[in-house]
């Protein structure tokens, strides 16, 4: 990308701005923690109205499924989230909330739109300037990357442990789940040179310098050769590489333009390698990646939403509808907490998915131009 002066300026300002959800945030929380009782079927948030300021949510998972907790602004812009709250566990979320209307959501099983409740925050709310809206986009997306990265490391650790323990069945179960977090943040992960090919490269991408490794090497051994006895070093390297990419991703501040392009690239990924089944050619778990790419794209768009609302509200409407159509189409193939295998879908069903992705990707490809316009 060729940065234009406008974007260089934003990058600079963005990198010195404080990240509001950082745990080291010195802002004092308003009042005591707000308890959230999460189960497999409920998400009871102790308060539905708050004063503007920084708040701490205390989420306790009493269900049998791993859950997630989100605070969303309009258009599912993530204000704060905690991933991977395992059964019996309690975790905190600290989040700064300006006046406005929000939604809270628990996601038992970590899929779908979750169990929602409205949350109203009152106080003075100054309208954002255009530049502030763009700045906020970067901050908002950084929060997303941070939470996804943490879950990525945890889930990859679980997967790698299962592989090294020789447990083929468990490894197969964990494979698409660990990949979900990687696929959500792929536009950031791809920035760092050889790391993405090492983690996510396919057999036909391998070269003498960069031999076949990472997720797909393990996928092939799990599903095709059915022998993971020699994969200890591959698994260790995968975890090392994932930790490195995560450390870099968290430190990276993406420009608004990079967010816009990332949202589009994630859908290009879906169109070019998930619908066709190229990505997970041994396991056929492509729909997990599909859903994760769409999630990631939606997160990037949501981060840009305040700026887009100011500049092109019609485009925002179009994109909202198109995301809903993708969700509805994809929902046809949900099985339990996961998805049908790619090779279980008929050509007509794959075309249905292809159509809704094309319908979404065209308006999303216009975001970059809207953001770049001064």
């Amino acid at each position: 990308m060729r940065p234009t002066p406008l974007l260089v300026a934003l990058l600079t300002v963005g990198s010195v701005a404080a990240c509001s959800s950082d745990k080291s945030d010195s802002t004092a929380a308003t009042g005591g923690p707000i308890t959230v009782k999460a189960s497999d079927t409920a998400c009871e948030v102790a308060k539905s109205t708050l004063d503007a300021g920084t708040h701490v949510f205390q989420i306790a998972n009493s269900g049998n499924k791993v859950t997630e907790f989100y605070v969303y602004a309009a258009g599912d812009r993530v204000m704060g989230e905690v991933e991977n709250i395992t059964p019996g566990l309690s975790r905190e979320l600290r989040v700064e909330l300006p006046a406005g209307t929000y939604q809270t959501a628990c996601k038992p099983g970590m899929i779908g739109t979750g169990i929602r409740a409205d949350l109203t925050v009152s106080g003075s709310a100054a309208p954002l300037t255009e530049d502030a809206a763009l700045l906020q986009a970067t901050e908002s997306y950084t929060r997303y990357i941070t939470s996804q990265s943490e879950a990525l490391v945890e889930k990859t650790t679980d997967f790698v442990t299962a592989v090294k323990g020789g447990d083929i069945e468990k490894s197969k179960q964990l494979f698409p789940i660990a990949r979900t977090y990687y696929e959500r943040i792929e536009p950031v992960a791809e920035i760092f040179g050889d790391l993405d090919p090492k983690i996510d490269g396919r057999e036909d991408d391998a070269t003498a310098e960069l031999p076949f490794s990472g997720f797909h090497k393990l996928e092939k051994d799990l599903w095709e050769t059915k022998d993971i006895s020699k994969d200890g070093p591959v698994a260790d390297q995968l975890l090392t590489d994932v930790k490195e990419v995560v450390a870099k991703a968290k430190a990276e501040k993406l420009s608004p333009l990079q967010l816009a392009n990332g949202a589009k690239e994630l859908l290009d990924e879906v169109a070019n390698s998930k619908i066709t089944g190229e990505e997970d050619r041994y396991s056929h778990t492509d729909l997990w990646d599909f859903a994760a790419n769409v999630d990631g794209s939606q997160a990037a768009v949501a981060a840009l939403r305040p700026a887009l609302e100011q500049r092109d509200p019609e485009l925002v409407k179009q994109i909202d509808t198109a995301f809903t159509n993708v969700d509805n189409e994809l929902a046809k193939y949900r099985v339990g907490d996961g998805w049908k295998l790619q090779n279980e879908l008929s050509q007509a069903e794959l075309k249905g998915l292809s159509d809704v992705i094309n319908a979404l990707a065209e308006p999303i490809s216009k975001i970059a131009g809207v953001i770049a316009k001064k």
Partner: protein
Amino acid sequence: MSDKSFPRRRVIALAGAGVAGVAGAAAVGGALLRSSDSAAEAATDQVPFYGPVQAGIVTPAQDRLHFVAFDVVTKSREQLVQMLKDWTAAAARMTAGKDAGEIGATAGILEAPPDDTGEAIGLPAAGLTLTVGFGPTLFRDATGKDRFGLAARKPAALADLPHFPGDTIDATISGGDICVQACANDPQVAVHAIRNLARIGMGVVSVRWSQLGFGRTSSTSTAQTTPRNLFGFKDGTANLKAEETDLLREHLWAVADDGSDWMAGGSYLVSRKIRMMIETWDRTSLGEQEDIIGRTKGEGAPIGQGREFDEPDLTSTSILADAHVRLAHPTTNSGAHLLRRGYNFVDGSDGLGRLNAGLFFIAYQRDPRTHFVPIQLNLARHDAMNEYLRHVSSGLFACPAGVSGPDDFWGRALFA
């Protein structure tokens, strides 16, 4: 894009790198040439887009074809109408040799995808015509549901084609809610037009199937010579031609009294993808080939006559009972004439060492029930040529009258 930012960004692009800068400058030059209204060169090969009937029917057949059939994927009539308006505007620009979008392939800001895909930069209009048609499934879906409040406006003439003896129709490359026929003298211009319309339509329509044709197999004007199909024979000698105004009125153009007022000035399009068994045909003797067609291979004269345009003597037994020329002739079919506009195709090979090749047949007519259907039933039952043919795709579309001017759009009368 603001006017202020354009020169600045252009300067950045040009200063960015030597090689890229030169390429950028060349591209800008191309866009200017292509977009210029006054370019004398472009004017000579433009076919007017606006007019009482759609271009691309009696227009002298261009050399190349890209035909596409779309499924409508939206449920919103409003979205569909808006897309037809957007398509019409883009079609008017592209047939005039301009870019698909208002900004163009290279004049926009660097951060946004261009509103024209760019492969036609520097190419002339190349006689491009874009012709639209509406299929039976646009009016009612397979379950009989009225999709867009159009069911009552479905013309009786748009009745589904029957199954013809020997048909091996593949549903996935047949039918469709809307078709667009792009014909041009440059294949890249035709492909560019379809590609940009498909892009504009995303979310509203989805490409169901498409077909490239590389050589016209019919002449639609007496000014054109008769081309050859892949059997090596002249095709379309007895075709309806632009100059035959009485016959066109009787056999080609629909009128309001036919039962559908919005189709007045329109015509019905039947498409058939006909695979030819090329390799076995080529092993057939010249005499047998000529007997099957009913014409000589060199001159194209009816058997027993000397010249191509001599009338075949159907009373003579020298034209065999199952000869193609006899079975397809108007006198054998209650006087029915078709305006054929087919193209040769080769879709690579079939994995068995054979060319996947044949004729993409297109015919326009006033009413398929009295024209294509009886003729094809006759051919499908008796034609000696059938041994070398497979009908693999079939389409039927109602092509409305022409677009009158910039305020009009494709399908306005239908959606009125």
